[in-house]
């Protein structure tokens, strides 16, 4: 059996599971209506103002940094899997690549992107 087919089987199983559980719960669970039930939970106090607001930009910076280094991880994986056949040359080239990335990290560090303010 090919792996792609098996992946599809697992995916379909997962989708089946969530829907089966959800509909079982909908069928079994009690239903009652109350105007205050649909309100967001705020420890008993009514919500003030909208919740979909502009949010702290620190998270955005983290996401950008993540993007840079995650793509780098993706690029390094193929090298890692053939490392034994490329040997010293491959190591030197990748060291160069990693150095540039490390410089990027140092730059972000010096600029204060890693500080939480």
């Amino acid at each position, binding site marked *: *059996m090919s*792996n792609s*087919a*098996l*992946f599809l*089987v*697992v995916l*379909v*199983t*997962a989708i*089946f*599971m*969530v829907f089966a*559980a*959800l509909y*079982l*719960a*909908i069928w*079994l*669970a009690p239903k*009652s209506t109350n105007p205050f*039930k*649909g*309100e*967001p*939970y*705020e*420890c008993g106090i009514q*919500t003030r103002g*909208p*919740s*979909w607001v502009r*949010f*702290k930009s*620190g*998270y955005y910076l*983290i*996401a950008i*940094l*993540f993007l840079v*280094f*995650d793509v780098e*991880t993706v690029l*390094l*994986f193929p090298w*890692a*899997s053939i*490392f*034994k056949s490329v*040997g010293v040359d491959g*190591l030197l080239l*990748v*060291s160069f690549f*990693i150095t540039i*990335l*490390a410089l990027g*990290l140092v730059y972000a*560090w010096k600029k204060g992107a*890693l500080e*939480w303010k």
Partner: protein
Amino acid sequence: MFHFKQLTEWLDAFLRQYLNEGWTLFVEFLLVGAVILTVYAVLALLLIWTERKICAFFQCRLGPTRVGPFGLLQSVADVIKILLKEIIRLNHVDQRLFRIAGFLVIIASLCTFGAIPFDKGLHAIDFNIGVFYLLAVSSLGVVGILLAGWSSNSKYTMIGAMRSGAQLISYELSCGLSLMTIVILSGTMQLSQIVEMQSTGWFIFKGGIPAIIAFVVYLIAGHAETNRGPFDLPEAESELTAGYHTEYSGIQFGFFYLAEYLNMFIIAAIAATMFLGGWMPLHVTGWDGLNQVMDYIPPVVWFFGKTFFCIFIALWVRWSFPRLRIDQLLKLEWKILMPISFVNIILMAVWVLLFN
């Protein structure tokens, strides 16, 4: 030595005797789905019970004792209870995203679960890019968590989701980089082959110092990935009620809960597979007597033994350390674990060049 591969091959031949090609495949697919679902559910129940029992012992309590022997049926009772709870329909949420979020989290966790090799031939998916697949699919859960927090339209969930997202994506980097050291050492990304290569010695022994560093980094980063222990600030109970799943009720909350526990298992299982030899028994070169005794223990027992060892470490850490602040959390990842992982990759490459 008994391997599940024998069982699956026998079953395949048995089905082919009576059915034609298409139906054989269909029955096998059904079996794979049923087995995965059963193992997933049973493991979830077992893990919830284990966690509650162990956390009770850490706090000098007894934990669940009433339902069934040693409280073993407690989590079964919990599942029935959660199925019977009302699913509250909220007014101001983005209904579609609100539903999809829970689904995404659990589907990501089950798809990752399918790739774990429990024994020789006992894995649903065995891609030749297995490690890559694990990282890719498990990171889908972040999307679910962010959607859950955002669509709930509540301040607690919003803050919880943002914290959780920042934490998960940050620590994913260290996870990926520390798994990469093992890929360098083994030269393959296929999980079954990685396990096979450890028949002469687990990678944590074969890889020397870089492998040990990678193992420690992976345990810390993986622990943070599961949103628990000292890294549980996405759902810091005293500040954010329940973090990103505050607004969920009934089985929809159950999805998040289940995925959280299974993610703990998946992280531990990957640690066991990559570093501790998966289902390979412990062999010491030269000690033939010991090696033969170790061979008598079934591989599945080895796998679960190692996995539960990693889970125990995670629980131990969880109940021993106070919660970190968000700046400390990000500092730990970006200023300590990341540079260590970078250097460790080069170290491992040099190690492989020198000793292999």
